[in-house]
């Protein structure tokens, strides 16, 4: 075996993901022109989450890595969830 890199790079995948990210950028700016009220926030957050999922899985190669990396990458969401959860539980329920 002559090559010892963890994984082999694929250019085509990089191009496809980049194209998808640009499309999502256009979508998020375009949809922001329409008034959905509070829906605007959720549309923006959903599209941003989709973009970050693409970046995480493909550019940061979480998809091709071992599960422990995935645990670190997405496990952080658990801790963020605790942070956001308790903060919102507090101030949104103050009388």
């Amino acid at each position, binding site marked *: 075996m002559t090559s010892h890199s*963890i994984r082999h*790079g694929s250019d085509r995948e*990089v191009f496809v993901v*980049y194209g998808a*990210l640009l499309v999502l950028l256009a979508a*998020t700016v375009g949809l922001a022109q329409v008034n959905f009220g509070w829906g*605007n926030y959720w549309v*923006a957050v959903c599209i941003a989450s989709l973009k970050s999922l693409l970046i995480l899985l493909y550019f940061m190669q979480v998809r091709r890595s071992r599960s422990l990396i995935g645990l670190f990458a997405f*496990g952080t969401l658990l801790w963020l969830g605790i942070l956001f959860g308790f903060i919102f539980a507090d101030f*949104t329920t103050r009388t």
Partner: protein
Amino acid sequence: MLRSDGPAGAGVTMELRQQPFPVDDHPDEQYVTLTQQQETAELGMWLFLATEFLFFGAFFAAYLVYRYLHSRAFELASERMDLVAGTINTGVLLTSSFTMALAVASVERHETRRVGRFLLCTIGLGIVFLGIKGMEYFHKFTERLIPFAGWDFAPGGATRAGEMAFFNLYFLMTGIHAVHMIIGIGLLSWITLAIWLGHLRRRAATVVHNVGLYWHFVDLVWVFLFPFFYLVGAH
């Protein structure tokens, strides 16, 4: 198979930077396999990135609190943002992640020259981003939208406090993001120089990959910063 010669023949007379990356055959002594060593380095970077997620996460939590409390003010303040500059900047940063991913793919295929070019593109795009950001900051100054103590803050009325909160968060979060960009550009410059000078021969794939992880993370943070500051409410 270790290639120490290039097309010119005897490796000794060839310039360092034109030699291909040598294949790294042995791990350092505390590792069993090379794959284990590479994965350990990668995991170390991910652990650091996890702390960075929490670091930025706290700022986003603060943002969401103030947005909830001053939703109308945040919409008004967001309309004062330069959407064109923000959109272009997002495109610039996504493209820099694209060139970074191409650099990582190239280094895994041991393509010395292409790696250097892609890294330089990434650095260039990072500098463009910072330039546009600096221009935006300057415009905030001329439009009197800087909410710091002792500064003249233009917006008045009932939403003034909320708009001040928005711009405080804007400068804080994009400022810290810009610091991370500068650090990222520094790291990229270091590895580009190291690869060019032939210093990063054995560990090139791992190092480029890990710096790439940091850079993608900085891009990821901006992916959330952009809608939260530029796309609040409808435009």
